[in-house]
């Protein structure tokens, strides 16, 4: 049975009818399993990389040590654990002493990621997967500079002496801003007790790190969560790095979207190829039936062929998909610094189910229709243009694609948005094509000339298939337009592509007396700084005469309120800030009366329910300051310039003791300058954010490269659809053109007619795609990506242009044989 089927398959393949269908199926499997595998492995790799921000998979943050049993349970479950105690303490060396942020880390730290150390200050890092040994202290380069010792010198913490044998260049987990304010010293956890620094009541924070498989982590989390109290926080990557989590989620969403649309496009190509396959076999089925084949035999014969074909397509496509993953990762190259996780079977399964699903949904209806072909066809050709059957198979196809996409993306909303956009496009396409046809008819009556006439006649003759062609090509273009726009708008939105010279170091605690010297230091070393901003630290205590803690709807424990906030003043609205409401002071001096105006950052204003006119009271070092909100501003937090929640006019904060803050860009090669800087200005506090920025840049780079590559794959799918479209009309075109040429039409005339016809189809498809993609984008932006909804006008220019060009090139390529084959050959083949 199977060998017979195989033999038929080989025959049909040699006969040339199955090639397009098989190719479409294999390409669908390759693309789908390639995208699935790639995005699966990429997101796993990105997740892994982002786990470096925690140096673990999960972290338990607490102010007290946890019971021994908790770690034992984790070990029993197979999890790896590590412990970090962090506290502030003085470090002494010779005559010098300096407040440092100290971490005592256990031997297994870090669980994920590596520590970068160097024997030269600010030198290039060597990566290590373990922290300092007993008796060693690793310190920030600036700490060496501040204490005025060399690498290898002696330093002491509390009652213990250490050898400062390495400069600590980078840590996998940066910790919060608080930890970054003071320079880092790192010792072994086993040395902690001997220092005597940790006394009852001293402020020590503990981080317990856990790493393991998802199941182990889940089991432990289930065991642990009932035991946690309010002061203990269980964190995963998403809690630890909300910005990173959002980035990852968007990237995942994007890849899934691209893959779903890839499925839809591949499905359309398969449907077209299968329809042609069915059409080309209608006569054969009539003959077979006349020779005594039963309906079942026909079904088994053609269904079997399809099954064998999909099996072959799955194998070939699976291999192709694997190769595709490999190519994709290879082209990512150095961007991926962590190991690529191994390939899994899931993508192949996804590809296989897709192939079988597409076969069932798109290729089976034509076969089912084949089994109903009347054998009477051998004697007299009937017109079995079954409109209802076509509609039914279209419905089956659409719902099948919907189910596949839903299963594939696991997102009903996304699927619905895409499908609805597709249906709207399809509906519009049909309506417009009908309009065009009636216009063409009128033009014909009025007597269009030459090539135009031929083109219009051709469009009119194939109005049903043209409607389909425009709809499906419009759909492909729509997909491309959507993805193209999404890619750029995602990147715009992330704005993580910082300019190369964005500030990467912050200096705070600059005294007014140091400003001149600091400026000349910057000048001397040609460093670009973001300007000096004055800064006074104060606490917001009252809003409209009410104590903040008493106001309903405000979380007084919120980190952004329940702490000392940096207040600043300026005569002009800072660069990058945009006024949202109210107005900026024109002339500060005239406006400062008894109540001082203040400009508030917009998001904070919203969460504090502040409006222009709200009265605020600040506590600045024990002194009270009353102010009235005069405007709200939006900030660009990623600008890497000093930003302030509250800004006052000049002369209003003068009486309060303050300092200055600035940020500047320092290239990695010049890191050594920091030692000079700190030696010259020992009281400054330096915050280095360059490594953080670099890590973010790597991830964003990965994501955008991945998106570009996936886009190329979707382009391949779209081209497949277009080719299948043209192929579908090839037979009837061959025949028609042969007749036209027999009747005396020149090659040139026919080619011109063809080009006009295809250009019209491309133009129409492009316009429809522009409308459809804008609709789809709105849905996706609103529901999936949760971004601002914007209208994209440029698509209306680009999509029609691309449509016309693609269609004309395709026409030129695949219709070459239309005019190169002698009419006699064509007419002889047409029976």
């Amino acid at each position, binding site marked *: 049975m199977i060998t017979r089927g195989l033999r038929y398959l080989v025959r049909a393949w040699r006969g040339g009818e199955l090639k397009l269908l098989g190719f479409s199926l294999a390409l669908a499997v390759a693309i789908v399993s390639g995208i699935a595998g790639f995005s699966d492995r990429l997101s796993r790799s990105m997740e892994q990389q982002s786990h470096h921000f925690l140096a673990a998979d999960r972290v338990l943050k607490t102010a007290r040590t946890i019971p021994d049993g908790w770690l034992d349970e984790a070990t029993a479950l197979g999890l790896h654990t590590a412990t970090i105690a962090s506290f502030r303490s003085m470090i002494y060396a010779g005559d010098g002493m300096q407040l440092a942020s100290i971490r005592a880390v256990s031997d297994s730290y870090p669980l994920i990621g590596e520590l970068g150390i160097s024997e030269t200050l600010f030198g290039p890092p060597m990566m290590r997967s373990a922290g300092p040994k007993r008796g060693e202290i690793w310190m920030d380069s600036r700490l060496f500079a501040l204490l005025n010792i060399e690498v290898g010198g002696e330093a002491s913490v509390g009652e213990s002496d250490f050898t400062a044998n390495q400069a600590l260049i980078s840590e996998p987990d940066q910790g919060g801003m608080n930890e970054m304010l003071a320079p880092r010293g790192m010792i072994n956890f086993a040395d902690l007790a001997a220092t005597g620094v940790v006394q009852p009541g001293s402020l020590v924070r503990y981080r317990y790190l856990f790493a393991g498989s998802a199941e182990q982590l889940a089991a432990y989390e289930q065991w642990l969560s009932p035991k946690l109290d309010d002061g203990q926080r269980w964190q995963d990557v998403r809690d630890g790095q909300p910005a990173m989590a959002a980035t990852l989620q968007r990237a995942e969403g994007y890849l899934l979207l691209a893959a779903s649309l890839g499925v839809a496009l591949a499905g359309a190509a398969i449907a077209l190829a299968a329809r042609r396959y069915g059409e080309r076999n209608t*006569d054969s089925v009539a003959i077979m039936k006349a020779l005594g084949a039963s309906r079942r035999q026909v079904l088994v014969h053609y269904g079997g062929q399809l099954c064998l074909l999909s099996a072959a397509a799955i194998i070939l496509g699976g291999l192709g998909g694997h190769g595709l993953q490999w190519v994709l990762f290879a082209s990512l190259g150095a961007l991926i610094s962590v190991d690529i996780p191994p390939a899994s079977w899931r993508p192949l399964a996804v590809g296989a189910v897709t192939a079988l699903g597409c076969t069932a949904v798109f290729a089976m209806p034509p076969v089912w229709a084949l089994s109903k072909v009347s054998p009477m066809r051998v004697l007299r050709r009937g017109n079995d243009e079954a409109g209802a059957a076509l509609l039914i198979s279209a419905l089956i196809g659409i719902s099948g694609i919907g189910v596949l996409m839903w299963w594939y993306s696991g997102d009903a909303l996304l699927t619905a948005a895409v499908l609805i956009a597709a249906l709207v496009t399809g509906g519009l396409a049909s309506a417009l094509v009908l309009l065009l046809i009636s216009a063409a008819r009128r033009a014909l009556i009025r007597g269009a000339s030459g090539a135009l006439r031929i083109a219009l006649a051709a469009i009119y003759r194939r109005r049903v298939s043209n409607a389909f062609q425009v709809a499906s090509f419009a759909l492909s273009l729509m997909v491309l337009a959507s993805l193209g726009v999404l890619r750029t708008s995602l990147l715009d939105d992330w704005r993580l592509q910082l300019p190369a010279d964005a500030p990467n170091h912050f200096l705070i605690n600059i005294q007014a007396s140091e400003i001149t010297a600091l400026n000349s230091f910057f000048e001397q070393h040609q460093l670009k700084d973001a300007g000096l901003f004055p800064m006074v630290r104060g606490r917001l205590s009252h809003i409209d005469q009410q104590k903040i803690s008493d106001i309903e709807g405000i979380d007084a424990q919120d980190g952004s309120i329940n702490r000392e906030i940096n207040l600043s003043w300026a005569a002009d609205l800072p660069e990058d800030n945009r006024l949202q409401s109210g107005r900026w002071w024109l002339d500060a001096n005239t406006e400062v009366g008894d109540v001082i105006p203040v400009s508030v950052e917009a998001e904070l204003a919203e969460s504090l329910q502040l409006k222009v006119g709200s009265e605020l009271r600040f506590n600045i070092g024990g002194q009270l300051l009353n102010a009235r909100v005069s405007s709200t501003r939006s900030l660009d937090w990623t600008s890497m310039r000093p930003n302030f929640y509250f800004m006052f006019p000049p002369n209003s904060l003068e009486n309060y003791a303050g300092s200055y803050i600035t940020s500047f860009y320092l290239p990695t090669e010049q890191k050594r300058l920091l030692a000079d800087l700190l030696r010259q200005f020992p009281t400054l506090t330096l915050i280095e954010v360059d490594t953080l920025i670099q890590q973010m840049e790597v991830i964003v780079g990965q994501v955008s490269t991945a998106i570009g590559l996936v886009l190329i794959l979707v382009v391949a799918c779209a081209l497949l659809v277009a080719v299948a479209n043209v192929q579908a009309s090839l037979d009837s075109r061959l025949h028609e053109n042969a007749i036209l040429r027999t009747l005396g039409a020149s090659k040139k005339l026919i080619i011109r007619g063809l080009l006009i016809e295809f250009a019209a189809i491309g133009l129409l498809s492009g316009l429809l795609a522009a409308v459809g993609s804008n609709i789809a984008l709105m849905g996706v932006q609103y529901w999936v990506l949760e971004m601002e909804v914007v209208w994209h006008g440029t698509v209306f220019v680009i999509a029609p242009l691309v449509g016309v060009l693609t269609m004309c090139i395709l026409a030129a390529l695949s219709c070459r044989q239309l005019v190169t084959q002698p009419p006699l050959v064509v007419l002889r083949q047409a029976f």
Partner: protein
Amino acid sequence: MIRVNNLCKTVVTGGQQLDILRGISFEIKAGESVAIVGASGAGKSTLLGLLAGLDNASSGDIFLHEQNISRMNEDERAAVRARYVGFVFQSFQLLPGMTALENVMLPLELAGHRSPAAAAQTYLDKVGLSDRGGHYPRVLSGGEQQRVALARAFAVNPNILFADEPTGNLDEHTGQRIVDLLFELNSQSQTTLVLVTHEASLAACCERVLTIHDGQLHEHSSVESAAL
């Protein structure tokens, strides 16, 4: 072999009723050769299709090999065709995706023949196309294609052979060779032959001639039909 009782065929197209056959009755005995003639559009192909069970009759009975095929469903009729019936068509109707040999093998395979390839080759030899078995129909001339069709029709040793204008698409000379071959194979295998034609010379080769006119059947002697 074939018995037809009061056969009617009516089709409705575009809201109009068209009576193609209005009560036709006749009988054909085993081994007879019968020509069906008539003007174009008279209903010859329709009748042939009904006889072969390719279509449903509106009313009346058709007995093929003593089986009432007008009471059968499509698949049962197909089974009868697979066992007893062979076909030759005006437009050859070879499967374009199969080689000449594979086309001949097809009905053998459908009938469950044990070594279809060998049997098919024998018949290709008989029609003089021994060395063209690997060629696809599109590279064969019309006469060659019709010879392949003849080989395919006779390969299953049918009890009844239906032919619809077997020479209609061929020039006179080639047509004559096909006719000769058809009757030669027919006499070898003692097949009952029913053929539709409007060529007098071909009709003259048959033992009986049935004429369709106005949906009715008239029987002539072969001499009379030769005058058509």
